[in-house]
């Protein structure tokens, strides 16, 4: 499975009211191609690793479902945040790690994710659901089941290290991304 296949499957189970956050690098660039179909996306362009903590702060302050499309590199960079998510247990948080075993946007150098079982780690950190999927059929079935359950949920998706997918740059300015999400959430109250 390529990262774009996984993101397509995930976005087909995301509802209009759900918020999707995407980590630095190709994951955000690819998710940006969904901007017209799903406006409630937050693209992180810098601060690798930080986004899972932003997700926690968001999830604790809204009833909407919050998805994060994390990478293996960014997840490993701030593993401690998983302990915080498991401790505070926001039931609306879905933490998805797109695990291609590589730092894709810097040229595909390997991460060290092969030697760690991220789903077991999430279970140990007290996420309510933790699963790992290797193929598209399993992901489709498993994702539908997990999205209906109370979180926090963790899903690790094993991917190929595909360097070939062309994606556009994110054309929104960072502060426009902030304003967009704040305005979407303002309507809630």
């Amino acid at each position, binding site marked *: 499975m390529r990262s774009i296949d996984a993101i397509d499957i995930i976005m087909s189970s995301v509802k209009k009211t759900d918020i999707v956050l995407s980590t630095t690098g190709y994951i955000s660039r690819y998710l940006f191609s969904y901007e017209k179909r799903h406006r409630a996306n937050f693209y992180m362009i810098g601060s690798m690793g930080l986004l899972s903590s932003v997700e926690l*702060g968001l999830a604790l302050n809204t009833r909407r479902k919050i998805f994060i499309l994390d990478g293996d590199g960014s997840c490993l960079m701030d593993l401690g*945040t998983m302990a*915080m998510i498991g401790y505070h247990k926001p039931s609306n948080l879905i933490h998805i790690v797109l695990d291609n075993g590589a730092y894709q946007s810097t040229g595909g150098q390997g991460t060290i994710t092969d030697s760690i079982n991220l789903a077991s780690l999430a279970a140990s950190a007290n996420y309510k659901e933790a699963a790992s999927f290797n193929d598209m059929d399993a992901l489709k079935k498993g994702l539908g089941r997990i999205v209906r359950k109370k979180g926090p949920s963790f899903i690790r998706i094993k991917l190929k290290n595909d360097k070939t997918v062309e994606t556009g740059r994110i054309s929104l300015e960072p502060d426009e991304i*902030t304003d967009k999400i704040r305005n979407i959430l303002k309507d809630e109250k």
Partner: protein
Amino acid sequence: MGAIEKKILGHLKEKGYTFYAGVPCSMLGSLIDTITSDKSVTYIPAVRENAALGVASGAYLAGKGACVLMQNSGVGNVVNALTSFNLIYKIPVLFIISWRGFKGKDAPEHIIMGEKTIPLLKELGVPHRVLSNRYKEDIDWALGVMKKKRIPASLILPKGLLE
């Protein structure tokens, strides 16, 4: 829990600051105790200062007034989050930073950061002010700058202000 901590929290609450995240410092202990014993506000213990900043930033995205409490040793841990997230995404979060190593009088590990805290904040372009007995004015100044510039501001807590 002293009276001044309650007054600081009371003023912040009045201004809409109900979400707190942080990493403890002995100098912040009484303020954190005051926050955690107040049921009308949230305190999120963070594993690292940048995670506290991330959580507070997420709360801001959801419309909350958010504050990070940390020791000045944590300034180093938030530099990248500031330069490549908060300052460019325009996410104003209030920092309350305890000042260890003030004027070179402290344990060895605090001396360098004690001297560099304010130059570092200046260099990063994060507005800062040392908290004084006129803390309401100091808080209002910080919140004013944050509103105007939409970036984080810092209040530096000197030794002896809290009880």
